[in-house]
């Protein structure tokens, strides 16, 4: 596949113009300015305009800059890594499970330990759903158990066993100081240790979650900002079929 190189666009194709802002822990002045310029150069930027340099407290200088990238990104390479296909409808998914599985899949959801944010998890689970799209509860091919917030590891493990879960859906909103790494890694270890991992599809979601991150931590995939329930349902069904029909 032959595509053109990609650069940021401002008002001229290929201009590469971006905006940045950051603080350096230095007194405002010529040295700070040079340090800011050098920082931006190390980011492979050129035509740097430091449009704002303001002392925001003793020893702290805030900068706003515009600059141009000196490189391009190859669209062809990226496109290869991204699978694209038409999304499946709810009816289609229900039909698929009906014909190929012959029972409902059991979904268990929770937010872990200290995390009290439920809005995102509920958006994926509840009938009401998100952005007008019904949540997983609405899919007749699923039986859903939403344990809600602040679920301790042990209670979650019990629930997975009790409900004979096919799918685990974790939500993690707080990511400050890598809290999600800590919690999710520990949960993944426990799943292994308790021998629950093999028969479970494991999914993580949250505003700062990406598929890459989730996989790195030992989960099957991850969903980030603005996820719609349909995409999650589709992943679940396809992954289940893939595992059981290969």
């Amino acid at each position, binding site marked *: 596949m032959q595509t053109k190189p990609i650069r940021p666009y401002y008002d001229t194709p290929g201009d590469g113009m971006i905006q940045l802002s950051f603080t350096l822990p230095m007194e405002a002045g010529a040295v700070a300015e040079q340090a800011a310029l050098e920082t931006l150069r190390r980011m492979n930027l050129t035509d740097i305009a430091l449009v704002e340099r303001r002392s925001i407290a003793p020893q702290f200088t805030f900068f706003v800059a515009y600059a141009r990238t000196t490189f391009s990104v190859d669209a062809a390479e990226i496109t290869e890594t991204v699978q694209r296909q038409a999304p499946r409808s709810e009816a289609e998914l229900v039909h698929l499970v009906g014909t190929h599985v012959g029972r409902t899949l059991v979904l268990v959801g929770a937010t872990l330990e200290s995390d009290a944010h439920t809005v995102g998890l509920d958006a994926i689970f509840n009938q009401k759903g998100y952005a007008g799209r019904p949540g997983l509860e609405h899919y007749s091919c699923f039986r859903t158990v939403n344990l809600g917030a602040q679920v301790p590891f042990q209670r979650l493990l019990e629930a997975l066993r009790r409900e004979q879960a096919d799918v685990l859906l974790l939500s993690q909103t707080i990511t*400050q100081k890598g809290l999600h790494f800590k919690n999710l890694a520990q949960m993944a270890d426990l799943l292994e240790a308790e021998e629950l991992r093999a028969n479970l599809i494991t999914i993580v979601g949250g505003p700062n979650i990406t598929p890459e991150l989730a996989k790195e931590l030992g989960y099957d995939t991850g969903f980030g900002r603005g996820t719609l329930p349909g995409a999650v349902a589709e992943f679940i069904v396809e992954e289940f079929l893939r595992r059981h029909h290969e």
Partner: protein
Amino acid sequence: MMRLRIEAKQVERCRSLAQQIATQLERDSSLYTTVTIERTSLRLLGLDGADAHGVPLPNLVVDRLREDLGDGVCRPLGLVMASRGGDLKDAVAQLLERGPAAIPSPEPENWRAPVAELAAAGLGRISRQRQERSQRMQRLPVGRSPWFYVIVATGNVYEDAVQAQAAARQGAQVIAVIRSTAQSLLDYVPEGATTEGFAGTFATRENFRIIRQALDEVSDELGRYVMLCNYCSGLCMPEIAALGAFERLDMMLNDALYGILFRDINMRRTLTDQFFSRWINGLAGIIINTGEDNYLKTDEGLTAAHTVLASQFINEQLALASGIPEEQIGLGHAFELDPELPDGFLCELAQALLSRQIFDRHPLKYMPPTRYKDGDIFMGYLQDGLFNLVSQMTGQQVQLLGMLSEAAQTPGIHDRYLALQNARYIRRNLEHLGEELEIRPGGRLEQRAVQVLRECQELLERIAGQTLYEALEAGTFAGIARPPEGGRGLDGVVRKTDRYWNPFSPS
């Protein structure tokens, strides 16, 4: 001047309904004590510190006396002290070593006296800090309102101090140190200076002291007193209130309903704790902040506006019942409507005015948009601007500043700078706008206010017809339902015996 024409009668009716609700709850709560109330009593008597494992001494004592906690801890303590003639330390050592067996029988005479003496000393410390605050504020006035309130949340108390001082220099008048996530679920208060928190820093006495000192320094530098705020809510409401009183905090979030709804804490536990906690805040001259803003994070501001107002009425009465004067009751409300809403700003303005008019002696705390912030930081900055505008026009007292990075992470140093710049610009550039405008009688603004007040009254009538517990069970607030016997911390609630004694009884 912008003024809404609302019925004084209706407001009175709401107040008296809320009073009924509060009285009923107070009656229920007065039958119980809790582990944290007893630990707080020990702290007020002067007990402090932890064992080698970091377990706080108050926890050790209360756990040791757990079986007969219905008697309270002050009674056994008094008995031991009176019988041995020793001091607090000695009595505590005895109780820890021997447990209930240390309690002498028959009762020595005048066993209440040594505890009453310690209690007086403890309260004395609190009132000295209160005086200290008054003197400092006299010398270094806080400055005009709305007071700009920002948070720091680095997780490391020393870094918090750096950010708090920077924020003060940037114009902040109140600094809140956010707690590490889940501290509200801990049934003890950690000890010492802490440097590892998640999305916040642990509330400990030492941390309070460190930040208070950093702010005292910068207050002197700036010639204005910079206030410090932290959180009581959670499983240790009264204990943290006591530590805040000792370390001269100026403002504390204090709301049992937050714990119930958002932290799944048992309602009897935390509402009982709240009375004691607020009593201490009141004594200490600390302004409390209630958490009505949170309701609009899970429920819709357009349709749930009256629940905020109803909760303000209830929280006002609950605070008064704890002995807090209006001047210290910082009721919460928020600017949380969907920015897509046509004329949404009018609803925000109406609501903010309504709160202001009804709670006219209260240092209302006005909370910025958070829920409808997304990664578009520019739009976020504008939303905060409109919020600041409403705050300024309607004369709120405490203005928590929104952050443009709200949807991404806890604020960084320049986010706070930008937020303060935003607020300062509005406060200066629109200073007298509110004075120069009037509200069209019978127009959209007034109609909205009237509607919210009406719905609020209806709701209060309903709640007064049942109990607050039942209302919470029915999912009245924040769209979240909680069972009276569910949630964390119920096992820490103990029915008082008739032998129960406590020198610090709020009422």
